[in-house]
């Protein structure tokens, strides 16, 4: 085992990703510390970590965003490094800078890389300047007076986006260029309301694109490799639901070009540590979308096909080591699928669900991996992201992986809080999904997958509930059989 300049790492995160990072720290014989908000006191990460330090905030989320408290916790636990996980402060350059200035190693890219690649427009301009493909676009700030004219010359359909935006807000699709002016006014109003920033940009709207992303790893000696691509096209409201690696039905030539482009972009940016370069792909064309300067939720599918522990590599890079493999050493084997189990009801418009976890039984078997952030007895609230667990399977072929993942969704038992597991099972068994014909509009075009069949097995459930409910059974037991048989028409 290679020596690291730190023996304790603070995880500035919660849920499944905190658990996942602790597992690697244990394997590397490093000590783990976590920060936690009171609502997470019963969470598995808190009991698994060698040290847990409480943080507080105006809201539970604010506690995990409080850099000052996190740095104080790092000093208290005498850690040498801080891993930000994903979300929260993971892509906050100020935080990364403060971590480094406080004398800790930041398990992630340099603050400069986050500044450059974490900002959508800056990253896009950088990528374009370096000769990589981006979607044709017009940025208002470049010259506000000619904005509409420049947008028109791109040709429709167009997508109006908020510069400060994300999560689908301030976005408008324009198919008829005559309505462009109206769409700009609406998007600006929305952007102003949600982000306090009405700046816009407009790009060519790519119909039914696939979302393909590439895992990259760089060290501080200028070495950069890619760990192949992931397909993340199964999305709802820009939220990924099922991810897989490799991307099915990508022609081999295209696959290689996309992966190499991603590594070249990371190299041009002098990128170090783990990152993901996202592309949209349509036909044989692909365009840079954005770069995520952190570990991603769906990183396990890449780990399954390559055998690389990405968190371990992140720690070695943060500890100043050179990458221990070159591009030729990285081989992709078989097919991996990840299904995200959320506390939500797809059948009711994906409304978040809450409750206490009464029974929790994960499927197991060869090729299964469960990254879970919950345990039995835990209260699920809406205070945090609704991701409960990720079920990842690895098989020799895509069809086999889909079948195994579907079976896993059938076998997973989580009682006490509704989840999207049945919905995931429906998608994994869907013909179109199995043929690999997915794009980012796939779930919207197949509303039956979301709706499910609300009536199926209804009487079976009611029978079980009736037999398990004492007063219902008691009132049957109290009536002699002869009277009961008259009940049907007596009640009518």
């Amino acid at each position, binding site marked *: 085992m290679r020596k690291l300049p730190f023996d304790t790492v603070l995880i500035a995160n919660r849920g499944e990703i905190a658990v996942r990072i602790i597992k690697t720290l244990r394997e590397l014989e490093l000590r783990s510390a976590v920060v936690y908000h009171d609502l997470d006191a019963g969470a598995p990460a808190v009991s698994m970590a060698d040290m847990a330090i409480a943080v507080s905030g105006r*809201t539970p989320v604010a506690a995990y965003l409080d850099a000052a408290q996190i740095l104080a916790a790092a000093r208290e636990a005498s850690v040498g490094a801080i891993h930000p996980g994903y979300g929260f402060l993971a892509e906050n350059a100020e935080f990364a800078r403060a971590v480094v200035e406080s004398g800790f190693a930041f398990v992630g890219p340099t603050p400069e890389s986050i500044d450059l690649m974490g900002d959508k427009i800056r990253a896009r301009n950088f990528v374009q300047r370096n000769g990589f493909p981006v979607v044709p676009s017009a940025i208002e700030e470049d010259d506000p007076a000619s904005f509409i004219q420049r947008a028109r010359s791109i040709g429709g359909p167009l997508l109006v986006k908020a510069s400060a935006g994300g999560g689908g807000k301030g976005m408008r699709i324009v198919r008829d260029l005559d309505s462009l002016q109206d769409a700009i006014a609406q998007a600006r109003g929305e952007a102003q309301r949600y982000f306090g920033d009405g700046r816009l940009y407009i790009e060519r709207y790519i119909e039914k694109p696939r979302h393909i992303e590439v895992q990259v790893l760089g060290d501080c000696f200028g070495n950069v490799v890619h760990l192949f691509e992931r397909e993340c096209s199964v999305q709802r409201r820009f939220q990924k639901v099922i991810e897989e690696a490799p991307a099915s039905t990508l022609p081999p030539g295209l696959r290689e070009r996309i992966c190499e482009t991603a590594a070249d972009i990371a190299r041009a940016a002098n990128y170090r540590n783990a990152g993901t370069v996202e592309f949209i792909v349509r036909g044989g064309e692909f365009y840079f979308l954005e770069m995520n300067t952190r570990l991603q939720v769906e990183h396990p599918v890449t780990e399954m096909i390559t055998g690389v522990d990405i968190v371990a590599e992140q720690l070695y890079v943060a500890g100043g080591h050179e990458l221990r493999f070159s591009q030729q050493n990285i081989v992709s084997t078989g097919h991996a699928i990840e299904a995200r189990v959320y506390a939500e009801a797809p059948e009711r418009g994906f409304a978040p669900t809450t409750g206490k976890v009464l029974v929790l039984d994960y499927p197991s078997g060869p090729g299964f991996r469960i990254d879970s952030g919950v345990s039995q007895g835990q209260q699920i609230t809406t205070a945090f992201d609704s991701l409960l667990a990720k079920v990842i399977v690895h098989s020799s072929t895509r069809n086999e992986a889909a079948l195994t993942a579907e079976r896993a969704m059938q076998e997973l038992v*989580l009682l006490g809080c509704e989840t999207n597991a*049945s919905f995931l099972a429906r998608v994994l068994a869907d013909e179109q999904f199995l043929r690999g014909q997915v794009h980012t509009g796939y779930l919207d075009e197949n509303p039956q997958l979301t709706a499910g069949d609300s009536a199926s097995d209804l009487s079976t459930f*009611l029978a079980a509930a009736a037999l398990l409910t004492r007063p219902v059974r008691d009132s*049957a037991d109290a009536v002699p059989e002869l009277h009961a048989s008259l*009940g049907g028409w007596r009640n009518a």
Partner: protein
Amino acid sequence: MNHVFELEGVDYQLWLSRCQQGYQLHLGDEVLALLTFSHQGDGRGLLTIAGASEPVRFAIDGDTVHLRIRGRTRILRYRDPLSAHGLVNKDAGHLVARAPMPGVVVKTWVLPGDQISEGSELMVIESMKLESVIRSPQDGVVDQIHFKEGESFEHGAVLVTITEEGH
């Protein structure tokens, strides 16, 4: 007698009667027989309907039965016939705006004492990435805001109380 189970907002009336060594379920015009349920411990059981058996995972939490059968999970609430039920939306001249789903308050647009009219924006709430606006169901005066910005609430929680004008 009829018993009521609520499932996803719908009430189902049913009753059980004894039948041979088990029970039969009366559900509208439908009769299911012969039913037995054998407990296997640890929230596991075997439901048998007319000779066909299904493994069942279950958890009972007060009046709520959580069931997993054939890879599907459902939550059924037993409505105790003795307890009063139903949400009261209007009491003592107060109107209440309730949370349609659990979430977090993003912004409140009004203060207690504010005059509001039907359709006025009261509050912006967020459930996951979806924001929605809670509007006033009618003209009135804001009486109380029950959650501050950033606070989270459960399904059905009273968000804003409104006094009808003149009260």
